[in-house]
C-alpha cells in the first residue's frame, strides 16, 4: 500500500451508501475465520453491554410488573399489568407525555438548527474558530449544580438579571416569572436544554465536516458556485447521514430528559414541566413506588424505541442491512 493510495480521497456518492459495498470474494473459504473476526470485533462490546446494561434493564422491566415499594425483597408482589393500567389513567403521566413531545419537536428544530449553523460557521476557519469551538463545548463541562444556580437565580424575579435586562431595553412587558410560570416554564426548559446540549451535536457535525476534502469545495468554487450554493449542493448532502444520526440523538435525549428538569424545576410548578423520566423518578424514589416508577420508565423506553425504529427504517440508516 503506497502513500499515494492512502492520500487519494474520493468523495462519497450523493446518496451515502453505508455498509460494506463489495462482498468479500474470499468469504467462502474463510467462513470460520470471518466468524472469529466478527466475534473479536463485536463480542467485547456486546458482552459488557448485555452484562451491565441489559441485565439491570431486565430487572427494571420485571419490577414494573410488581407493586414493590423498594424496601425489602420480601415485599415483591406480582401485579401483572396493574401498573400499566394505572398509568393509562394517570393525568400527570399524560401531561408529562405531552411535555416530552413538545420538547422533542422543539429540540429537533432548535438544536439541529443551532448545531448545524454553528458547525458550518466554524468550518469557515476564521481566526479563533478553535477557541469558539472550545467555548461551545463548555455547557458539557459545567456541573449541573452551577447551571441550576446561575439560571435559577438569574431568572428569578427577586434576585435575577433577566427581568431588569428586559426592562432596560424597553421590553418590560415581557418581564415576569420564568421558571415559576406554568405557561413559560416549558419553553424555558427547552431553551436551557438547547443551551446545554447543542455543543455535542455541533461537535459531531464538525468532526464530519473536517473529513470533507477541501478540493470538493474548490471544485464547486471554480464552477462558479457561491459560498451558500456550495454548502447547499456539496456540503449538506455529505452531511446527510450525520444529520440523520444527530437528529436521532436529539430525539432520544429529549425523550429521556431528566437531569436538567430535575435540577431546574423538579417538574414544577405543579407538574407544569413534568417529563416522563422525572415522574418515574418521583414515583420510584420519592413516593416509594418502585414498581409504578419502573413501569413509567418502561413505557418511556418502549415509546422511544418504537419512534427510533420507525425513524431508523424511514431514513434508511439501515438500508444495506
Amino acid at each position: 500500500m503506497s502513500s499515494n493510495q492512502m492520500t487519494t480521497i474520493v468523495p462519497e456518492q450523493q446518496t451515502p451508501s453505508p455498509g460494506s459495498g463489495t462482498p468479500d470474494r474470499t468469504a467462502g473459504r474463510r467462513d470460520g475465520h470471518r466468524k472469529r473476526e466478527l466475534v473479536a470485533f463485536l463480542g467485547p462490546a456486546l458482552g459488557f453491554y448485555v452484562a451491565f446494561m441489559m441485565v439491570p434493564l431486565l430487572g427494571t422491566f420485571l419490577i414494573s410488573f410488581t407493586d414493590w415499594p423498594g424496601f425489602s425483597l420480601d415485599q415483591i408482589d406480582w401485579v401483572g399489568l396493574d401498573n400499566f393500567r394505572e398509568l393509562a389513567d394517570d393525568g400527570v403521566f399524560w401531561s408529562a407525555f405531552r411535555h416530552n413531545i413538545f420538547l422533542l419537536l422543539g429540540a429537533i428544530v432548535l438544536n439541529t438548527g443551532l448545531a448545524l449553523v454553528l458547525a458550518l460557521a466554524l468550518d469557515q476557519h476564521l481566526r479563533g474558530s478553535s477557541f469558539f469551538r472550545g467555548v461551545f463545548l463548555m455547557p458539557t463541562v459545567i456541573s449541573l449544580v452551577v447551571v441550576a444556580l446561575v439560571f435559577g437565580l438569574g431568572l428569578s424575579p427577586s434576585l435575577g438579571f433577566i427581568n431588569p435586562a428586559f426592562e432596560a431595553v424597553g421590553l418590560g412587558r415581557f418581564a415576569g416569572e420564568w421558571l415559576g410560570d406554568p405557561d413559560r416554564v416549558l419553553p424555558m426548559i427547552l431553551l436551557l436544554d438547547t443551551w446545554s446540549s447543542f455543543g455535542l451535536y455541533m461537535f459531531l457535525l464538525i468532526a464530519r465536516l473536517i473529513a470533507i476534502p477541501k478540493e470538493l469545495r474548490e471544485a464547486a468554487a471554480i464552477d462558479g458556485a457561491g459560498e451558500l450554493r456550495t454548502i447547499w449542493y456539496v456540503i449538506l448532502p455529505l452531511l446527510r447521514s450525520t444529520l440523520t444520526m444527530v437528529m436521532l440523538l436529539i430525539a432520544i435525549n429529549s425523550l429521556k430528559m431528566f437531569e436538567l428538569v430535575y435540577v431546574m424545576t423538579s417538574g414544577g410548578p405543579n407538574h407544569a414541566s413534568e417529563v416522563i423520566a422525572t415522574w418515574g423518578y418521583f414515583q420510584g424514589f420519592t413516593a416509594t413506588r418502585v414498581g409504578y416508577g419502573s413501569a413509567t420508565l418502561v413505557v418511556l423506553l418502549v415509546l422511544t424505541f418504537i419512534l427510533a425504529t420507525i425513524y431508523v427504517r424511514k431514513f434508511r440508516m439501515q438500508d444495506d442491512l
Partner: protein
Amino acid sequence: MTRRASTRRLLSTSTAMLACGALLASCGLAGGDDSGGSGSDEVVFWHAFTAGAESGAIKSILDGFGEAQDSYTVKDRGIGNEEHFTVVRTGLAGGSPPDLVHYEGYQQTRDFAKAGQLLDLTDFWKEHEDKFILKESAVRACTSEGKIYCIPYTFHSGFQMYYNAELLEAEGVEPPQTFEDFTAAADTLKDAGLTPVSIGAKDGWPAEHWWMNFIVQRCGVAHVYDVIDDKGAKFTDECFLQAAEDLAGLAEAGYFPEGASSDDYGAAISVFASKKAGFMQTGSWYAAELLETPTEFEYGIVPFPRFEDAENTGDITGAVTHVFGIPADAENPDGAKALLEHMLTDESTATWAEAGLFSLVDGAVEQNGPEEVMPLWDAVLKAEASLPWLENELPPGVGEDAIYNGSAALVAGRMSPQEFVESIQAALDKARQGS
C-alpha cells in the same frame, strides 16, 4: 511523521493508560473484597450532616466516641439531603446497609420497619427514655405497630418568624406580637416599596410550612391527627380551608415577592439576607445557621404571630427531624448501640446543643444552647402539642405531591383554597385505596 509512528504513539499511549489503570485497580486502590462490609470492630454510620452547624457537631461527637472507648472505630459517611434517602433506601433494599443510619422518622420508620429493615429498639429506648423530653413527639417519630425502631435526636421548630430589625426600625414597625400586627407591619413595608415576606416556594415545603402554621391555629394538632389517622376528619374540613384562605390572602395582599414560586429555599435566604425583605418564616435550623453565617444587619426572631381569634393557642409546628436506627442486616449492631449510647451522653448532647441544635435530651439545650436560640426553645417547651411536617406523616403522593405543589400554587395565586384542600383529600383517598 509517518503513519506508523503515529499509530505506534497511539498504541503506546493507550497501552500505558490501560496498564496504569489496571495497575492502580489491582493494587488495592480499586477496593476489592470488602464490598461495603465492615469488620466487627468497625461501626459504619450513614448520616446527612454534611454542612453547617450539624457537620461540625457530629464530627466532634464521633471524635469523642473514639476517645471514650477502644472497642470500636466509626466509619461515617455523610450524604447531602435529597441524595441521602436514595442511598439509604438502596442500601437497605440491596442488603448491604450501614450499622447505624440517620433518617427522618415517622412514615420512613413505618416503611422501613414494615419491610423488616430495622432492628427493634424498644428495649434500648425503655432503658434511656427517662433522659428525654417531648416524649410524645419522640415516640411518634419512631413507632411502628407499637414497637420502637429508632432513637430520636433533634427537634426542629417551624413556629417562628425571622425579621430584619434594621429594616423594621427604619419603617417604624415594631416586631409583631399578633397576626394582625404582622399584616399591619407588612402593609407598611409594602407601601415603602419593600418585599414584606421572603419565601421560596419552588420546592413546596416552605409554602407548606406557612399553611401548617395556620392549620395549628385553625384546627389544632389533634384535629390534624384525626385526618392522618383516618378518624373521620378530612382535609376538606372547614378549618383546613380557612388556613388555606389565610395563606391565599397573604399572596393576594402582595406580601410575597414576585418570584415566590420560582425561588427555592436558598434564594429566599438570599432575598432576606440581601435586605430586600422584612420577614421570613423558616425552621429553627436557620437560627443555628445564623450563628455560623450571620447577616450583615441585625436580625430578630419572634414566635410566629397568632391570630387574635385563633381557636388553638397552645399548638405549634415542629418535628423530631433526626432519628437514628439500626438496620436489621447491620453487621455490627452492638457497635451501633455503643455509638448511640455515646451520642446520648451529656458531653455529646452538650456539643449538639452548643451548635444551636435542639437536642431531645432533657436539660441539654437549657444548659448549653446559645442565647440566640433560647426563645425558640422556650416556645417549644411551652407548647401543648406540636405538628410534625405533614410530608413526614403522610404518604409521599399526598405530602410531597399534592401538598407541596398545591401550597406553592396557593402562594403564587394559581390555585383556589377550595381546589387546594380538595386536591389533598383526593390524593389521600387515592393513597389509602392503593394500600
